[in-house]
């Protein structure tokens, strides 16, 4: 049966219009004013906003190998609840996604059992060890959208240069998790006021910036499409802004938590504030917002990094890095960036849907006739409150646990199929 979304405010070509959307099977058949009901299933979206489904370039689904934290089913369910219709899975699973069999496993499982589309990011080097280039061209044949050693960072500049050259032969972007290991050391939080105060090892911004500077130079030399994951410092954003001005092929993303949260949250040793790169200073946070507005930062990505309760519930130093992202992303950004007047709702949608969709070169991220029906219906006045009882992710490691946020995802459609309903 065709579905008719009536009376919603639809995000079309960068602005909101009161239109109806007719979905036929997987696709948007028609967008029009007052489409008459012809025995369709009607979804009344009165008072709600209809947005292009969110796209997340950076997530960890932990499947295969770490399904105590998350798996493809729970991860995509959580994604759908957060309004995401396409998510990209980072390759640091067990085994690492450095071969076609694992790519195929993830894609097939997501297709058969998933609640959102899953695109796969392959490993840049075998086992992400930073030594030998992985079989990038073969994985491209199986549909990977980018390569990355995320979670790890190739330290050897020569190997990185060769890997970037190789990847650029096939025009696939290389995503870098920028971290110079010696400078980061065994750091736990941002190096500065709070690492001094809490006696925790510091991770200086320099550890991130020095790799970004290096990789920008390598991208210039190799002509590779370089994408920088989760930028977190003012200086890092300056480096990328300058490189873009010079015409280097570089893009970058920022996480919701680096846009919204700062290092002072670590003061009570809450392991749900332990993340890499670490939460930084207010100055850095403001630079992230400015970078998002001026276009230096291309889009928002969650870095959804689930860890089981019993892994996070322990000594701060011994707990793993990473926080849960899908279910809080939109509401936290809407509440704390849009409602506070920092950015417009339109910009938020661009950065959560349109821009990341363009990056992976898929025909999604915009509401248009003929496109697949990837739609997220939100009620901006309604609230959410994530609890360990209502989260769909297997893990509950979010700093937003038990906090009330505005901007509720009411319903999500992925390829025309309802994947979430509040």
């Amino acid at each position, binding site marked *: 049966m065709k579905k008719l979304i009536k009376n919603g405010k639809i995000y079309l070509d960068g602005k909101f219009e009161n239109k109806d959307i007719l979905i036929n099977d997987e696709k948007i058949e028609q967008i029009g004013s007052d489409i008459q009901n012809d025995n369709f299933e009607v979804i009344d979206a009165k008072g709600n906003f209809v947005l292009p489904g969110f796209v997340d370039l950076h997530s960890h689904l932990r499947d295969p190998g770490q399904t105590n934290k998350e798996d493809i089913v729970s991860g995509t369910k959580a994604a759908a609840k957060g309004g995401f219709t396409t998510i990209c899975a980072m390759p640091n699973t067990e085994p690492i996604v450095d071969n076609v069999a694992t790519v195929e496993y993830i894609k097939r499982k997501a297709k058969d059992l998933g609640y959102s589309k899953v695109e796969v990011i392959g490993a840049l080097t075998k086992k992400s060890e930073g030594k030998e280039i992985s079989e990038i061209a073969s994985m491209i044949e199986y549909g990977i959208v980018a390569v990355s050693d995320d979670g790890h960072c190739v330290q050897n500049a020569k190997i990185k240069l060769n890997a970037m050259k190789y990847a650029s032969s096939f025009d696939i972007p290389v995503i870098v998790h920028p971290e110079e290991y010696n400078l980061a050391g065994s750091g736990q939080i941002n190096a*500065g*006021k709070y*690492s*001094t*105060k809490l*006696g*925790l090892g*510091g991770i200086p911004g320099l550890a991130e910036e020095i790799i970004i500077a290096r990789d920008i130079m390598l991208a210039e030399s190799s002509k590779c499409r370089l994408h920088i994951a989760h930028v977190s410092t003012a200086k890092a954003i300056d480096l990328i802004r300058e490189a873009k001005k010079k015409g280097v092929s570089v893009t970058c993303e920022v996480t919701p938590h680096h846009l919204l949260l700062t290092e002072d949250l670590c003061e009570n*040793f809450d392991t749900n504030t332990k993340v890499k790169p670490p939460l930084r200073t207010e100055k850095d946070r403001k630079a992230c917002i400015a970078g998002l507005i001026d276009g230096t930062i291309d889009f928002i990505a969650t870095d959804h990094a689930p860890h089981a309760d019993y892994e996070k*519930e322990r000594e701060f130093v011994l707990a793993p890095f990473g926080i849960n992202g899908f279910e809080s992303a939109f509401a936290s950004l809407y509440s704390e960036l849009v409602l506070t007047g920092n950015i417009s709702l339109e910009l938020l949608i661009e950065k959560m849907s349109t821009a990341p969709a363009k990056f992976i070169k898929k025909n999604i991220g915009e509401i248009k006739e003929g496109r697949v029906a990837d739609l997220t219906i939100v009620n901006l006045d309604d609230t959410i409150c994530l609890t360990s009882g209502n989260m769909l992710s297997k893990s509950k490691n979010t700093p937003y646990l038990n906090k009330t946020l505005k901007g509720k995802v009411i319903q999500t459609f992925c390829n025309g199929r309802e994947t979430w309903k509040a």
Partner: protein
Amino acid sequence: MKNTNNFVGRNLYDLADFSKEEIISILKTTQAMKEINLRDYKKLPTLRGKTVCTLFFENSTRTKMSFELAANRLSADVVSFSASTSSLTKGESLQDTVYTLNAMGIDLYIIRHSCPGTPQLVNKYSGKPVLNAGDGRHAHPTQALLDIFSIWEKRGTLEGLKIAIVGDIAHSRVVRSNLIGMKKLGASVTVCAPKTLMPSKMEEVYGCTVDYDLKSALKDADVIMGLRMQLERQSEGLFPSLEEYTKRYVLSKETIKFAKKDALIMHPGPMNRGIEILPEIADSNQSIIIEQVANGVAVRMALIYLTLGGKI
């Protein structure tokens, strides 16, 4: 008589948890405990029937002994749990360990752990008061209290005193807790080390003075505290050699002459004689290093007494 003790059941994570008045109240109780320690019969019956558990995840002989002696002198029962930090990453979780111990009926936990913030977890899992006996580089409040008591006892106040702390500031929990407490009591503190052993933003966080030069740091000081310099910092690339460190930063007759004539000399121990402090200073009349150790037992008695509901 009405009990005015408002320390009952409270945690001591760091000195930030207590006001100036509360710290002075602890110092006064310490004074009373110290007198008991000087008696022939060093025991109070006060805490009969209470059980104190020392949880040590880091090697420590002195602090552990000091706490256990303190609890024994108050007639509390003491049980000890010791494990290395490495066993934590492999063996039972802290949560399960505390659940297990708690089931045995513990009234007060004393914890030392290499990870900052762990005392808070012990309280979270046990619901019982916790005294921090040192958590990583973060805090060592009982050491700071004994240091402060040692100065207070000699000088009557910390108000207006100039205190210089010299050595590996970066890795020292003693310094961090002392800075909070000394500042609260009105002292001005200068910390001195080469930049590689000095954490960033010290002035902003603690309101102290940072000096990389020993002589100017010691100028007109009322109190000088040396810190242990560990050889492993050399292999970490933080300084070139103990010999060069000593040349620049050792407390000697030569260097302490920039301080006030009667400046107190302190050290939290264990000392590296000949590296951060010369014997001529450690054993001098100005040195109160051994008294610090004695005061440590008294401070810990005071804290255990107050936390478990002793009358004041």
